[in-house]
Protein backbone atom coordinates (compact mmCIF):
# COMPACT_ATOMS: atom_id res chain seq x y z
CA UNK A 1 0.00 0.00 0.00
CA UNK A 2 2.68 2.51 0.96
CA UNK A 3 4.48 1.97 -2.34
CA UNK A 4 1.26 2.48 -4.25
CA UNK A 5 0.73 5.70 -2.34
CA UNK A 6 4.19 7.05 -3.13
CA UNK A 7 3.62 6.10 -6.73
CA UNK A 8 0.41 8.10 -7.01
CA UNK A 9 2.02 10.96 -5.12
CA UNK A 10 4.97 10.89 -7.52
CA UNK A 11 2.56 10.86 -10.42
CA UNK A 12 0.81 13.97 -9.14
CA UNK A 13 4.20 15.62 -8.57
CA UNK A 14 4.94 15.05 -12.23
CA UNK A 15 1.77 16.79 -13.26
CA UNK A 16 2.22 19.51 -10.69
CA UNK A 17 4.39 21.69 -12.92
CA UNK A 18 1.57 21.74 -15.45
CA UNK A 19 -1.39 22.19 -13.17
CA UNK A 20 -0.31 23.61 -9.82
CA UNK A 21 -3.73 24.41 -8.29
CA UNK A 22 -5.31 21.07 -9.11
CA UNK A 23 -2.59 19.30 -7.16
CA UNK A 24 -3.42 21.01 -3.90
CA UNK A 25 -7.16 20.34 -4.29
CA UNK A 26 -6.38 16.73 -5.16
CA UNK A 27 -4.31 16.34 -2.01
CA UNK A 28 -6.83 17.96 0.31
CA UNK A 29 -9.69 16.02 -1.22
CA UNK A 30 -7.74 12.78 -0.82
CA UNK A 31 -7.18 13.63 2.82
CA UNK A 32 -10.81 14.50 3.48
CA UNK A 33 -11.84 11.39 1.59
CA UNK A 34 -9.63 9.25 3.79
CA UNK A 35 -10.93 10.98 6.89
CA UNK A 36 -14.52 10.54 5.75
CA UNK A 37 -13.90 6.87 4.98
CA UNK A 38 -12.37 6.27 8.37
CA UNK A 39 -15.26 7.98 10.13
CA UNK A 40 -17.89 6.17 8.07
CA UNK A 41 -16.24 2.77 8.39
CA UNK A 42 -15.82 3.03 12.12
CA UNK A 43 -19.30 4.48 12.72
CA UNK A 44 -20.98 1.66 10.83
CA UNK A 45 -18.82 -1.02 12.43
CA UNK A 46 -19.59 0.35 15.91
CA UNK A 47 -23.32 0.62 15.17
CA UNK A 48 -23.44 -3.01 14.03
CA UNK A 49 -21.43 -4.14 17.03
CA UNK A 50 -23.36 -1.97 19.50
CA UNK A 51 -25.93 -4.59 20.69
CA UNK A 52 -23.10 -7.00 21.55
CA UNK A 53 -21.12 -4.25 23.28
CA UNK A 54 -24.21 -3.19 25.21
CA UNK A 55 -24.90 -6.75 26.28
CA UNK A 56 -21.35 -7.21 27.58
CA UNK A 57 -21.61 -3.90 29.41
CA UNK A 58 -24.98 -4.77 30.94
CA UNK A 59 -23.47 -7.98 32.28
CA UNK A 60 -21.24 -5.87 34.54
CA UNK A 61 -24.10 -3.77 35.90
CA UNK A 62 -26.37 -4.36 38.86
CA UNK A 63 -29.93 -5.38 38.03
CA UNK A 64 -31.27 -1.94 38.94
CA UNK A 65 -28.64 -0.18 36.81
CA UNK A 66 -29.41 -2.53 33.94
CA UNK A 67 -33.00 -1.34 33.62
CA UNK A 68 -32.25 2.31 34.45
CA UNK A 69 -31.73 4.88 31.67
CA UNK A 70 -28.92 3.80 29.36
CA UNK A 71 -25.60 5.07 30.65
CA UNK A 72 -21.98 4.35 30.01
CA UNK A 73 -21.05 5.52 33.50
CA UNK A 74 -21.67 3.00 36.25
CA UNK A 75 -19.64 1.13 38.81
CA UNK A 76 -18.85 -2.24 37.27
CA UNK A 77 -19.64 -5.27 39.33
CA UNK A 78 -19.19 -8.99 38.89
CA UNK A 79 -22.33 -9.63 40.89
CA UNK A 80 -24.30 -10.98 37.90
CA UNK A 81 -21.51 -13.30 36.87
CA UNK A 82 -21.26 -14.64 40.41
CA UNK A 83 -25.04 -15.02 40.56
CA UNK A 84 -25.09 -16.92 37.26
CA UNK A 85 -22.19 -19.12 38.34
CA UNK A 86 -23.86 -19.78 41.67
CA UNK A 87 -26.89 -21.18 39.91
CA UNK A 88 -25.12 -24.45 39.23
CA UNK A 89 -27.38 -25.14 36.28
CA UNK A 90 -25.47 -22.74 34.06
CA UNK A 91 -22.59 -25.20 34.03
CA UNK A 92 -24.90 -28.06 33.25
CA UNK A 93 -26.10 -26.29 30.11
CA UNK A 94 -22.62 -25.13 29.18
CA UNK A 95 -21.34 -28.67 29.58
CA UNK A 96 -24.12 -29.93 27.32
CA UNK A 97 -23.10 -27.38 24.70
CA UNK A 98 -19.44 -28.36 24.93
CA UNK A 99 -20.10 -32.10 24.81
CA UNK A 100 -22.56 -31.88 21.93
CA UNK A 101 -20.51 -29.39 19.87
CA UNK A 102 -17.22 -31.26 20.33
CA UNK A 103 -18.79 -34.71 20.01
CA UNK A 104 -20.61 -33.89 16.79
CA UNK A 105 -17.54 -32.18 15.34
CA UNK A 106 -15.25 -35.12 16.08
CA UNK A 107 -17.80 -37.56 14.71
CA UNK A 108 -18.31 -35.49 11.57
CA UNK A 109 -14.55 -35.21 11.01
CA UNK A 110 -14.06 -38.94 11.52
CA UNK A 111 -16.76 -39.69 8.95
CA UNK A 112 -15.73 -36.96 6.54
CA UNK A 113 -11.93 -37.38 6.37
CA UNK A 114 -11.97 -40.78 4.59
CA UNK A 115 -14.77 -39.61 2.34
CA UNK A 116 -13.09 -36.32 1.38
CA UNK A 117 -9.77 -38.13 0.94
CA UNK A 118 -11.20 -40.52 -1.60
CA UNK A 119 -13.04 -37.72 -3.41
CA UNK A 120 -9.94 -35.56 -3.68
CA UNK A 121 -7.34 -38.23 -4.48
CA UNK A 122 -9.27 -41.15 -5.95
CA UNK A 123 -11.97 -39.37 -7.94
CA UNK A 124 -14.37 -41.49 -9.98
CA UNK A 125 -17.15 -40.55 -12.35
CA UNK A 126 -19.56 -40.49 -9.46
CA UNK A 127 -17.54 -38.13 -7.23
CA UNK A 128 -19.09 -34.94 -8.51
CA UNK A 129 -22.59 -36.34 -8.23
CA UNK A 130 -21.92 -37.51 -4.66
CA UNK A 131 -20.62 -34.09 -3.65
CA UNK A 132 -23.63 -32.31 -5.11
CA UNK A 133 -26.01 -34.79 -3.55
CA UNK A 134 -24.41 -34.18 -0.14
CA UNK A 135 -24.91 -30.46 -0.66
CA UNK A 136 -28.55 -31.03 -1.55
CA UNK A 137 -29.24 -32.84 1.75
CA UNK A 138 -28.39 -29.52 3.43
CA UNK A 139 -31.29 -27.96 1.55
CA UNK A 140 -33.89 -30.05 3.36
CA UNK A 141 -35.47 -27.57 5.77
CA UNK A 142 -35.28 -29.00 9.31
CA UNK A 143 -38.87 -28.08 9.98
CA UNK A 144 -39.91 -30.39 7.13
CA UNK A 145 -38.58 -33.42 8.98
CA UNK A 146 -39.22 -32.23 12.53
CA UNK A 147 -42.24 -34.47 13.06
CA UNK A 148 -40.68 -37.82 12.07
CA UNK A 149 -37.40 -37.07 13.87
CA UNK A 150 -39.30 -36.08 16.99
CA UNK A 151 -41.43 -39.24 16.94
CA UNK A 152 -38.47 -41.50 16.13
CA UNK A 153 -36.42 -39.99 18.94
CA UNK A 154 -39.36 -40.35 21.33
CA UNK A 155 -39.78 -44.00 20.45
CA UNK A 156 -36.12 -44.96 20.83
CA UNK A 157 -35.59 -42.77 23.90
CA UNK A 158 -33.23 -40.25 22.33
CA UNK A 159 -35.44 -37.27 23.14
CA UNK A 160 -33.68 -34.85 25.51
CA UNK A 161 -30.39 -36.76 25.44
CA UNK A 162 -26.93 -35.50 24.48
CA UNK A 163 -26.48 -38.54 22.25
CA UNK A 164 -29.58 -37.67 20.27
CA UNK A 165 -28.54 -34.05 19.75
CA UNK A 166 -24.99 -35.11 18.87
CA UNK A 167 -26.31 -37.46 16.18
CA UNK A 168 -28.49 -34.72 14.68
CA UNK A 169 -25.66 -32.16 14.64
CA UNK A 170 -23.19 -34.65 13.18
CA UNK A 171 -25.47 -35.34 10.24
CA UNK A 172 -26.47 -31.69 9.95
CA UNK A 173 -22.86 -30.58 9.53
CA UNK A 174 -21.49 -33.59 7.67
CA UNK A 175 -22.07 -32.20 4.15
CA UNK A 176 -20.35 -28.91 4.99
CA UNK A 177 -17.44 -30.70 6.65
CA UNK A 178 -16.95 -33.04 3.68
CA UNK A 179 -17.07 -30.11 1.27
CA UNK A 180 -14.64 -27.98 3.18
CA UNK A 181 -12.17 -30.83 3.69
CA UNK A 182 -12.51 -31.73 0.01
CA UNK A 183 -11.50 -28.21 -1.07
CA UNK A 184 -8.55 -28.19 1.34
CA UNK A 185 -7.38 -31.67 0.28
CA UNK A 186 -7.67 -30.74 -3.38
CA UNK A 187 -5.29 -27.81 -2.87
CA UNK A 188 -2.57 -30.21 -1.72
CA UNK A 189 -0.08 -31.11 -4.49
CA UNK A 190 -0.74 -34.72 -5.52
CA UNK A 191 2.99 -35.50 -5.81
CA UNK A 192 3.46 -35.42 -2.06
CA UNK A 193 1.06 -38.30 -1.44
CA UNK A 194 2.39 -40.03 -4.56
CA UNK A 195 5.91 -39.93 -3.10
CA UNK A 196 4.64 -41.45 0.11
CA UNK A 197 2.94 -44.23 -1.81
CA UNK A 198 6.18 -44.94 -3.70
CA UNK A 199 7.90 -45.39 -0.37
CA UNK A 200 5.35 -48.07 0.42
CA UNK A 201 3.00 -46.19 2.73
CA UNK A 202 -0.42 -47.76 3.18
CA UNK A 203 -3.57 -45.66 2.82
CA UNK A 204 -3.85 -45.35 6.56
CA UNK A 205 -0.22 -44.26 6.91
CA UNK A 206 -0.62 -41.90 4.00
CA UNK A 207 -3.61 -40.22 5.64
CA UNK A 208 -2.19 -40.14 9.16
CA UNK A 209 1.42 -39.16 8.47
CA UNK A 210 1.16 -37.08 5.29
CA UNK A 211 -2.34 -35.79 4.61
CA UNK A 212 -3.47 -34.86 8.10
CA UNK A 213 -0.30 -33.03 9.21
CA UNK A 214 -0.08 -31.14 5.91
CA UNK A 215 -3.71 -30.00 5.92
CA UNK A 216 -3.98 -29.44 9.67
CA UNK A 217 -4.84 -25.72 9.38
CA UNK A 218 -7.65 -26.55 6.97
CA UNK A 219 -8.92 -29.36 9.18
CA UNK A 220 -8.77 -27.07 12.20
CA UNK A 221 -10.85 -24.36 10.55
CA UNK A 222 -13.31 -26.98 9.30
CA UNK A 223 -13.62 -28.29 12.85
CA UNK A 224 -14.07 -24.76 14.20
CA UNK A 225 -16.85 -24.01 11.73
CA UNK A 226 -18.58 -27.22 12.74
CA UNK A 227 -18.23 -26.28 16.43
CA UNK A 228 -19.64 -22.81 15.73
CA UNK A 229 -22.62 -24.16 13.80
CA UNK A 230 -23.41 -26.78 16.44
CA UNK A 231 -22.93 -24.36 19.33
CA UNK A 232 -25.32 -21.80 17.80
CA UNK A 233 -27.91 -24.22 16.45
CA UNK A 234 -31.30 -23.36 17.88
CA UNK A 235 -33.99 -25.25 15.98
CA UNK A 236 -33.24 -28.83 16.99
CA UNK A 237 -32.02 -27.88 20.45
CA UNK A 238 -35.27 -26.05 21.23
CA UNK A 239 -37.45 -28.84 19.87
CA UNK A 240 -35.60 -32.00 20.88
CA UNK A 241 -34.39 -31.13 24.37
CA UNK A 242 -36.16 -29.89 27.46
CA UNK A 243 -34.10 -30.01 30.65
CA UNK A 244 -31.55 -32.83 30.83
CA UNK A 245 -29.67 -32.29 27.57
CA UNK A 246 -30.55 -28.66 26.83
CA UNK A 247 -27.53 -26.71 25.57
CA UNK A 248 -26.91 -22.98 26.07
CA UNK A 249 -29.17 -21.91 23.19
CA UNK A 250 -32.13 -23.46 25.01
CA UNK A 251 -30.95 -22.16 28.40
CA UNK A 252 -30.78 -18.59 27.11
CA UNK A 253 -34.22 -18.99 25.52
CA UNK A 254 -35.63 -19.83 28.95
CA UNK A 255 -34.90 -16.22 29.95
CA UNK A 256 -37.55 -15.01 27.53
CA UNK A 257 -40.47 -15.58 29.91
CA UNK A 258 -39.72 -13.60 33.09
CA UNK A 259 -39.27 -10.45 31.09
CA UNK A 260 -37.37 -7.47 32.44
CA UNK A 261 -36.31 -8.98 35.73
CA UNK A 262 -32.92 -10.48 35.01
CA UNK A 263 -31.30 -8.35 32.34
CA UNK A 264 -27.89 -8.20 33.98
CA UNK A 265 -27.88 -11.94 34.66
CA UNK A 266 -29.15 -12.68 31.16
CA UNK A 267 -26.35 -10.50 29.77
CA UNK A 268 -23.70 -12.16 31.88
CA UNK A 269 -24.89 -15.62 30.86
CA UNK A 270 -25.13 -14.59 27.21
CA UNK A 271 -21.66 -13.08 27.23
CA UNK A 272 -20.20 -16.32 28.55
CA UNK A 273 -22.23 -18.27 25.99
CA UNK A 274 -21.04 -16.34 22.95
CA UNK A 275 -17.48 -15.33 23.93
CA UNK A 276 -15.65 -18.52 22.85
CA UNK A 277 -17.57 -18.75 19.58
CA UNK A 278 -16.94 -15.09 18.77
CA UNK A 279 -13.21 -15.69 19.13
CA UNK A 280 -13.36 -18.85 16.98
CA UNK A 281 -15.29 -16.93 14.35
CA UNK A 282 -12.79 -14.08 14.28
CA UNK A 283 -9.93 -16.55 13.90
CA UNK A 284 -11.39 -18.51 11.00
CA UNK A 285 -13.53 -15.98 9.10
CA UNK A 286 -11.49 -16.29 5.90
CA UNK A 287 -11.48 -20.08 5.57
CA UNK A 288 -15.08 -20.24 6.74
CA UNK A 289 -16.33 -18.66 3.53
CA UNK A 290 -15.36 -21.84 1.67
CA UNK A 291 -17.48 -24.03 3.90
CA UNK A 292 -20.45 -21.67 4.02
CA UNK A 293 -20.62 -21.27 0.24
CA UNK A 294 -19.61 -24.85 -0.67
CA UNK A 295 -16.51 -23.62 -2.45
CA UNK A 296 -18.48 -21.29 -4.72
CA UNK A 297 -16.72 -18.24 -3.27
CA UNK A 298 -13.05 -18.45 -2.39
Amino acid at each position, binding site marked *: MSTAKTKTLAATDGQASVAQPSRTTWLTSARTRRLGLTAL*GWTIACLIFF*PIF*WMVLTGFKTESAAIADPSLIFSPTLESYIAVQARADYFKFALNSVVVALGSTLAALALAIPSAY*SMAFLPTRRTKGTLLWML*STKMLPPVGVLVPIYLLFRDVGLLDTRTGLTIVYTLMNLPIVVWMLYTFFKDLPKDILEAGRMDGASTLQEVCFLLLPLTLPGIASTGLLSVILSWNE*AFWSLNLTSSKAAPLTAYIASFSSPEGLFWAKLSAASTMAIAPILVFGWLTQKQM*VRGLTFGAVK
Partner: protein
Amino acid sequence: MTKTRAAGRTVGGLRTLSLQAPAVTLLLLWMIVPLAMTVWFSLQRYNLLMPEMTGFAGLENYRYLFTDPALWTAMGNTLLLVGSVLAITVVGGTLLAVLFQQEFPGRGVARVLAISPFFVMPTVSALVWKNMMMHPANGVLSWLAESFGLPAVDWFSSLPLTSIVIIVSWQWLPFALLILLTAIQSLDDDQVEAARMDGAGPVAIFFFITLPHLKRAISVVIMIEMIFLLTIFAEIFVTTSGGPGLATTNLAYLIYIQALLDFDVGMASAGGVVAIILANIVAIFLVRMVAKNLES
Protein backbone atom coordinates in the same frame (compact mmCIF):
# COMPACT_ATOMS: atom_id res chain seq x y z
CA MET B 1 2.68 -51.80 -16.64
CA THR B 2 -0.85 -51.75 -18.00
CA LYS B 3 -1.66 -54.69 -15.79
CA THR B 4 -0.64 -52.98 -12.56
CA ARG B 5 -2.43 -49.83 -13.58
CA ALA B 6 -5.64 -51.73 -14.23
CA ALA B 7 -5.29 -53.54 -10.92
CA GLY B 8 -4.66 -50.21 -9.21
CA ARG B 9 -7.87 -48.88 -10.61
CA THR B 10 -10.04 -51.68 -9.27
CA VAL B 11 -8.37 -51.43 -5.90
CA GLY B 12 -8.99 -47.68 -6.08
CA GLY B 13 -12.66 -48.28 -6.88
CA LEU B 14 -13.02 -50.63 -3.94
CA ARG B 15 -11.17 -48.22 -1.73
CA THR B 16 -13.38 -45.34 -2.83
CA LEU B 17 -16.44 -47.35 -1.94
CA SER B 18 -15.25 -48.37 1.49
CA LEU B 19 -13.93 -44.90 2.31
CA GLN B 20 -17.12 -43.14 1.34
CA ALA B 21 -19.58 -45.73 2.60
CA PRO B 22 -19.98 -44.51 6.20
CA ALA B 23 -20.64 -40.86 5.37
CA VAL B 24 -22.84 -41.62 2.37
CA THR B 25 -24.89 -44.30 4.11
CA LEU B 26 -25.60 -42.18 7.16
CA LEU B 27 -26.53 -39.13 5.10
CA LEU B 28 -28.75 -41.25 2.91
CA LEU B 29 -30.58 -42.59 5.98
CA TRP B 30 -30.80 -39.11 7.48
CA MET B 31 -32.40 -37.82 4.33
CA ILE B 32 -34.58 -40.66 3.09
CA VAL B 33 -36.12 -41.99 6.31
CA PRO B 34 -37.53 -38.74 7.72
CA LEU B 35 -38.51 -37.55 4.25
CA ALA B 36 -40.45 -40.70 3.51
CA MET B 37 -42.04 -40.56 6.97
CA THR B 38 -43.09 -36.92 6.50
CA VAL B 39 -44.74 -37.72 3.19
CA TRP B 40 -46.39 -40.83 4.68
CA PHE B 41 -47.70 -38.99 7.78
CA SER B 42 -49.03 -36.20 5.60
CA LEU B 43 -51.35 -38.73 3.97
CA GLN B 44 -52.57 -40.14 7.30
CA ARG B 45 -55.12 -39.18 9.91
CA TYR B 46 -52.71 -38.92 12.80
CA ASN B 47 -53.36 -36.76 15.84
CA LEU B 48 -51.65 -37.63 19.10
CA LEU B 49 -54.62 -36.25 21.06
CA MET B 50 -57.10 -38.43 19.18
CA PRO B 51 -55.53 -41.87 19.07
CA GLU B 52 -58.70 -43.56 17.89
CA MET B 53 -58.71 -41.52 14.67
CA THR B 54 -56.34 -43.31 12.31
CA GLY B 55 -56.18 -44.49 8.75
CA PHE B 56 -55.37 -43.31 5.30
CA ALA B 57 -56.54 -39.78 4.67
CA GLY B 58 -55.45 -39.27 1.10
CA LEU B 59 -55.02 -35.59 0.40
CA GLU B 60 -57.36 -34.55 3.20
CA ASN B 61 -54.59 -32.97 5.28
CA TYR B 62 -53.49 -30.93 2.30
CA ARG B 63 -57.07 -29.83 1.67
CA TYR B 64 -57.44 -28.67 5.28
CA LEU B 65 -54.05 -27.03 5.15
CA PHE B 66 -54.67 -25.13 1.95
CA THR B 67 -58.13 -23.96 3.04
CA ASP B 68 -56.80 -22.83 6.42
CA PRO B 69 -56.34 -19.04 6.29
CA ALA B 70 -53.46 -19.46 8.78
CA LEU B 71 -51.38 -21.13 6.07
CA TRP B 72 -51.76 -18.19 3.72
CA THR B 73 -51.00 -15.71 6.48
CA ALA B 74 -47.93 -17.74 7.35
CA MET B 75 -46.87 -17.96 3.71
CA GLY B 76 -47.32 -14.22 3.32
CA ASN B 77 -45.27 -13.58 6.45
CA THR B 78 -42.58 -15.99 5.28
CA LEU B 79 -42.28 -14.25 1.92
CA LEU B 80 -42.29 -10.77 3.50
CA LEU B 81 -39.66 -11.83 6.01
CA VAL B 82 -37.42 -13.48 3.43
CA GLY B 83 -37.87 -10.68 0.89
CA SER B 84 -37.17 -7.80 3.27
CA VAL B 85 -34.21 -9.45 4.93
CA LEU B 86 -32.74 -10.38 1.56
CA ALA B 87 -33.12 -6.84 0.23
CA ILE B 88 -31.55 -5.31 3.33
CA THR B 89 -28.67 -7.75 3.68
CA VAL B 90 -27.71 -7.97 0.00
CA VAL B 91 -27.81 -4.23 -0.72
CA GLY B 92 -26.29 -3.39 2.66
CA GLY B 93 -23.73 -6.19 2.42
CA THR B 94 -22.57 -5.08 -1.03
CA LEU B 95 -22.18 -1.45 0.03
CA LEU B 96 -20.40 -2.44 3.23
CA ALA B 97 -18.08 -4.79 1.33
CA VAL B 98 -17.06 -1.86 -0.90
CA LEU B 99 -16.60 0.35 2.16
CA PHE B 100 -14.51 -2.17 4.12
CA GLN B 101 -12.41 -2.88 1.04
CA GLN B 102 -11.13 0.73 1.13
CA GLU B 103 -7.95 1.38 2.99
CA PHE B 104 -8.43 3.20 6.31
CA PRO B 105 -6.80 3.08 9.74
CA GLY B 106 -8.10 0.20 11.86
CA ARG B 107 -9.86 -1.44 8.94
CA GLY B 108 -9.11 -4.94 10.20
CA VAL B 109 -10.70 -4.27 13.59
CA ALA B 110 -13.69 -2.51 12.03
CA ARG B 111 -14.26 -5.54 9.77
CA VAL B 112 -14.15 -7.94 12.71
CA LEU B 113 -16.66 -5.80 14.65
CA ALA B 114 -19.03 -5.66 11.69
CA ILE B 115 -18.91 -9.41 11.08
CA SER B 116 -19.39 -10.39 14.74
CA PRO B 117 -23.21 -10.61 14.94
CA PHE B 118 -23.13 -13.64 12.63
CA PHE B 119 -21.40 -15.64 15.36
CA VAL B 120 -23.92 -14.80 18.08
CA MET B 121 -26.39 -17.59 18.76
CA PRO B 122 -29.91 -16.73 17.54
CA THR B 123 -31.53 -16.96 20.96
CA VAL B 124 -29.02 -14.50 22.41
CA SER B 125 -29.42 -11.95 19.62
CA ALA B 126 -33.19 -12.20 19.77
CA LEU B 127 -33.23 -11.64 23.55
CA VAL B 128 -30.70 -8.81 23.46
CA TRP B 129 -32.80 -7.00 20.86
CA LYS B 130 -36.05 -7.77 22.65
CA ASN B 131 -34.97 -6.73 26.13
CA MET B 132 -32.18 -4.23 25.74
CA MET B 133 -32.74 -2.58 22.38
CA MET B 134 -36.47 -2.67 21.63
CA HIS B 135 -38.03 -2.80 25.09
CA PRO B 136 -40.73 -0.09 25.16
CA ALA B 137 -39.78 1.25 28.61
CA ASN B 138 -36.11 0.53 29.17
CA GLY B 139 -34.73 -0.18 25.71
CA VAL B 140 -31.94 1.83 24.14
CA LEU B 141 -34.09 2.64 21.09
CA SER B 142 -36.95 4.07 23.15
CA TRP B 143 -34.47 6.04 25.23
CA LEU B 144 -33.01 7.47 22.01
CA ALA B 145 -36.46 8.31 20.67
CA GLU B 146 -37.39 10.03 23.92
CA SER B 147 -34.20 12.07 24.03
CA PHE B 148 -35.14 13.41 20.60
CA GLY B 149 -38.62 14.20 21.90
CA LEU B 150 -40.27 11.40 19.92
CA PRO B 151 -42.73 8.91 21.38
CA ALA B 152 -41.25 5.53 22.26
CA VAL B 153 -42.28 2.69 19.98
CA ASP B 154 -43.62 -0.54 21.39
CA TRP B 155 -41.83 -2.54 18.73
CA PHE B 156 -43.20 -6.04 19.20
CA SER B 157 -46.87 -5.06 19.53
CA SER B 158 -47.10 -2.25 16.98
CA LEU B 159 -44.49 -3.36 14.42
CA PRO B 160 -44.07 -7.09 15.11
CA LEU B 161 -42.90 -8.30 11.71
CA THR B 162 -40.66 -5.26 11.21
CA SER B 163 -39.00 -6.03 14.53
CA ILE B 164 -38.29 -9.60 13.46
CA VAL B 165 -36.95 -8.31 10.13
CA ILE B 166 -34.58 -5.97 11.98
CA ILE B 167 -33.27 -8.71 14.26
CA VAL B 168 -32.80 -11.24 11.46
CA SER B 169 -31.18 -8.65 9.18
CA TRP B 170 -28.75 -7.76 11.96
CA GLN B 171 -27.70 -11.42 12.07
CA TRP B 172 -27.45 -11.97 8.30
CA LEU B 173 -25.99 -8.66 7.12
CA PRO B 174 -22.61 -9.75 8.51
CA PHE B 175 -22.92 -13.05 6.62
CA ALA B 176 -23.46 -11.20 3.32
CA LEU B 177 -20.60 -8.86 4.21
CA LEU B 178 -18.25 -11.74 5.04
CA ILE B 179 -18.92 -13.55 1.74
CA LEU B 180 -18.92 -10.44 -0.46
CA LEU B 181 -15.79 -9.03 1.19
CA THR B 182 -14.00 -12.28 0.34
CA ALA B 183 -15.27 -12.09 -3.23
CA ILE B 184 -14.37 -8.44 -3.70
CA GLN B 185 -10.77 -9.12 -2.73
CA SER B 186 -10.27 -11.09 -5.93
CA LEU B 187 -11.19 -8.00 -7.95
CA ASP B 188 -8.33 -7.02 -10.24
CA ASP B 189 -6.80 -3.75 -9.00
CA ASP B 190 -5.29 -3.00 -12.42
CA GLN B 191 -8.72 -3.11 -14.01
CA VAL B 192 -10.06 -0.59 -11.52
CA GLU B 193 -6.97 1.58 -11.98
CA ALA B 194 -7.34 1.44 -15.77
CA ALA B 195 -10.97 2.47 -15.54
CA ARG B 196 -10.02 5.34 -13.26
CA MET B 197 -7.37 6.46 -15.76
CA ASP B 198 -10.08 6.48 -18.43
CA GLY B 199 -11.98 8.91 -16.28
CA ALA B 200 -14.54 6.59 -14.69
CA GLY B 201 -15.95 7.96 -11.42
CA PRO B 202 -16.45 5.81 -8.33
CA VAL B 203 -20.13 5.30 -9.16
CA ALA B 204 -19.35 4.09 -12.67
CA ILE B 205 -16.62 1.81 -11.33
CA PHE B 206 -19.08 0.34 -8.82
CA PHE B 207 -21.78 -0.38 -11.39
CA PHE B 208 -19.63 -1.49 -14.31
CA ILE B 209 -16.73 -3.28 -12.61
CA THR B 210 -17.42 -4.12 -8.96
CA LEU B 211 -21.04 -5.23 -9.30
CA PRO B 212 -20.49 -7.53 -12.32
CA HIS B 213 -17.51 -9.04 -10.50
CA LEU B 214 -19.70 -9.72 -7.43
CA LYS B 215 -22.63 -11.09 -9.41
CA ARG B 216 -21.90 -14.74 -8.67
CA ALA B 217 -21.10 -14.20 -5.01
CA ILE B 218 -24.30 -12.18 -4.63
CA SER B 219 -26.40 -14.96 -6.11
CA VAL B 220 -24.72 -17.47 -3.80
CA VAL B 221 -25.54 -15.22 -0.81
CA ILE B 222 -29.16 -14.88 -1.97
CA MET B 223 -29.66 -18.62 -2.36
CA ILE B 224 -28.00 -19.64 0.90
CA GLU B 225 -29.85 -16.96 2.85
CA MET B 226 -33.14 -17.96 1.25
CA ILE B 227 -32.78 -21.56 2.35
CA PHE B 228 -32.05 -20.52 5.94
CA LEU B 229 -34.55 -17.66 6.08
CA LEU B 230 -37.45 -19.76 4.81
CA THR B 231 -37.39 -21.59 8.12
CA ILE B 232 -36.40 -18.91 10.63
CA PHE B 233 -37.54 -20.24 14.00
CA ALA B 234 -35.60 -19.32 17.14
CA GLU B 235 -35.95 -15.55 16.71
CA ILE B 236 -39.74 -15.85 16.54
CA PHE B 237 -39.91 -18.49 19.28
CA VAL B 238 -38.03 -16.26 21.73
CA THR B 239 -39.54 -12.85 20.94
CA THR B 240 -43.17 -12.93 19.77
CA SER B 241 -44.14 -16.63 19.74
CA GLY B 242 -45.74 -15.96 16.38
CA GLY B 243 -47.99 -13.20 17.68
CA PRO B 244 -49.73 -10.91 18.17
CA GLY B 245 -52.34 -13.15 16.58
CA LEU B 246 -50.58 -14.64 13.59
CA ALA B 247 -48.66 -11.46 12.76
CA THR B 248 -45.23 -13.08 12.97
CA THR B 249 -46.10 -16.73 12.33
CA ASN B 250 -44.08 -18.04 9.42
CA LEU B 251 -44.26 -21.48 7.84
CA ALA B 252 -41.74 -23.00 10.26
CA TYR B 253 -43.55 -21.65 13.29
CA LEU B 254 -46.95 -22.78 11.98
CA ILE B 255 -45.65 -26.33 11.57
CA TYR B 256 -44.19 -26.18 15.08
CA ILE B 257 -47.57 -25.06 16.48
CA GLN B 258 -49.42 -27.84 14.65
CA ALA B 259 -46.96 -30.56 15.56
CA LEU B 260 -45.76 -29.88 19.09
CA LEU B 261 -48.60 -27.74 20.45
CA ASP B 262 -51.69 -29.11 18.64
CA PHE B 263 -50.18 -32.60 18.21
CA ASP B 264 -51.67 -32.87 14.72
CA VAL B 265 -48.96 -34.94 13.08
CA GLY B 266 -50.81 -35.30 9.78
CA MET B 267 -51.34 -31.57 9.25
CA ALA B 268 -47.86 -30.67 10.43
CA SER B 269 -46.35 -33.18 8.01
CA ALA B 270 -48.36 -31.71 5.15
CA GLY B 271 -46.93 -28.32 6.11
CA GLY B 272 -43.48 -29.88 6.22
CA VAL B 273 -43.89 -31.20 2.68
CA VAL B 274 -44.85 -27.68 1.53
CA ALA B 275 -41.74 -26.26 3.22
CA ILE B 276 -39.55 -28.90 1.58
CA ILE B 277 -40.96 -28.15 -1.88
CA LEU B 278 -40.44 -24.40 -1.39
CA ALA B 279 -36.84 -24.88 -0.28
CA ASN B 280 -36.13 -27.23 -3.17
CA ILE B 281 -37.20 -24.71 -5.76
CA VAL B 282 -34.37 -22.49 -4.49
CA ALA B 283 -32.01 -25.39 -3.95
CA ILE B 284 -32.11 -26.56 -7.57
CA PHE B 285 -30.61 -23.26 -8.72
CA LEU B 286 -27.94 -23.28 -6.02
CA VAL B 287 -26.90 -26.86 -6.73
CA ARG B 288 -26.68 -26.09 -10.45
CA MET B 289 -24.47 -23.11 -9.84
CA VAL B 290 -22.13 -25.00 -7.53
CA ALA B 291 -21.99 -27.81 -10.11
CA LYS B 292 -20.91 -25.37 -12.80
CA ASN B 293 -18.22 -24.06 -10.50
CA LEU B 294 -17.02 -27.60 -9.78
CA GLU B 295 -16.34 -28.20 -13.46
CA SER B 296 -14.25 -25.09 -14.03
